[in-house]
C-alpha cells in the first residue's frame, strides 16, 4: 500500500454509503406515499418512512462522533482554496440537513397528532402538542429542507464526479468502498 494513501476509514465509508442509500430510499418513499389513498399499505409506508428517518438521524450522530475522533483525509494539494471552502460549506450543510430533516419530520408528525413509535416499539416523546397550523407549517418546512437537500446533494455528487472524471484525482476514490487508489493502480 502506498504510504501517502489518504482514504477515509472503513467505518466512515460504510456510514457514508449506508446513510446515502437510506436518504435516497426514504426520500423516494416520501414522494410516493403522500399521493396514496388511505389504506393499510399507506399507514405502513408512513411508519417505515419515519423509522428510516430516525435511523438516519442516529447514524449521522454516530458519523459525526466518528469524524471528530478520526480526521478525514486532507484535500489534494492541487485543489484551490475556494474549492476547499465550498466543499467544507457543502459538507456542513449535508450534516446539518441530515439532522434537521428527521427532526422536522418528527415535529410535523407530533403536530399532526401522530406520535413516532420507532420500529413500532420505542415511543419518541412528542415535543409539540397537536396543532393544525403547526402541522402545516412543519410540513412545508420538511419539504423545503428536502429540496435544499436535493440541491446540496446534486452539488456534492457533481463535485465528486468532476474530481473523478475531470481532475482525475483520488477525491472520489478515497470514499469508494472497493476501488483502489488511482495512483496505486498505475
Amino acid at each position, binding site marked *: 500500500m502506498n504510504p501517502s494513501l489518504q482514504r477515509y476509514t472503513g467505518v466512515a465509508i460504510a456510514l457514508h454509503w449506508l446513510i446515502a442509500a437510506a436518504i435516497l430510499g426514504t426520500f423516494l418513499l416520501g414522494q410516493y406515499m403522500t399521493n396514496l389513498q388511505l389504506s393499510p399499505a399507506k*399507514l405502513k409506508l408512513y411508519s417505515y418512512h419515519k423509522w428510516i428517518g430516525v435511523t438516519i438521524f442516529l447514524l449521522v450522530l454516530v458519523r459525526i462522533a466518528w469524524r471528530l475522533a478520526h480526521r478525514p483525509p486532507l484535500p489534494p494539494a492541487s485543489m484551490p482554496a475556494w474549492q476547499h471552502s465550498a466543499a467544507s460549506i457543502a459538507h456542513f450543510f449535508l450534516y446539518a440537513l441530515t439532522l434537521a430533516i428527521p427532526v422536522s419530520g418528527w415535529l410535523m408528525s407530533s403536530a399532526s*397528532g401522530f406520535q413516532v*413509535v420507532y420500529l413500532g416499539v420505542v415511543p419518541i416523546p412528542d415535543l409539540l402538542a397537536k396543532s393544525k397550523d403547526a402541522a402545516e407549517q412543519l410540513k412545508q418546512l420538511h419539504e423545503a429542507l428536502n429540496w435544499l437537500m436535493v440541491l446540496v446533494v446534486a452539488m456534492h455528487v457533481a463535485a465528486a464526479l468532476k474530481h473523478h472524471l475531470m481532475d482525475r484525482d483520488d477525491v472520489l476514490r478515497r470514499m469508494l468502498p472497493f476501488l483502489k487508489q488511482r495512483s496505486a493502480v498505475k
Partner: protein
Amino acid sequence: MRSTSLFRFLTLVAITLPASAANVDYAKSEITFISRQMNVPVQGRFKKFNAQIAFDAKKPTASKAKIEVDLGSVDTGSADADAEVGKKAWFNTSVFPSAKFSSGAVAQTGPDKYEARGKLSIKGIGQDIVAPFTVKRAGDVVTYDGGFTLKRLQFKIGEGAWSDTETVADEVQVKFRFVTTGNK
C-alpha cells in the same frame, strides 16, 4: 343525505328520552377513543351523542343508561381518516348512522365504583360489554367517568384490507365522561 340521518337521529332522541333522566351537560361530557395504528396510539372522539342516565346510588341495580352515538360525528384525529371511516368497510354510516348502548344492570364494585353491563350495538351487531365507571358527586353535579375496550372486528369495523390488525389494532379503548346537572 346528511341532514336526513341527523333528523332521524334527533327524532330517535326525542322519542326515547325518559322523564326521570338527569340533565347531561354536553359541553363537559365526552366520548373519546384511542386506536393504535402501527402501534401508534391515536386519539379520536365523537362530537355528537345522546346520553340518558338514571343513576341511583342507593339502589344501583335500579339504574338505567342509554347512550346513542352519532357515528358521523367522529373525529378520528386526521382528516384523511375522517373521510374514510364513514365508508362501508368501517362504520357504514349511511346504513348504520349510530351506535347504541343500553344498560339496565349496574353493580357496585367498590366505593364510588360501579360496573354497567349492557348491549353495545354497532353496524347491526350487538355485543354484551362491561363498562366500569366511577361516580363523583359535587353538589347537584354528578360526573361519571369510565371506559371499556372493544374489539373492532367483532363489530366489523374495518373490513377487507382494513381487517389487518398489524396495521390497525383490533382493540380500541373507549373512554367516556358524562357530567349531569340537577341531581337531587
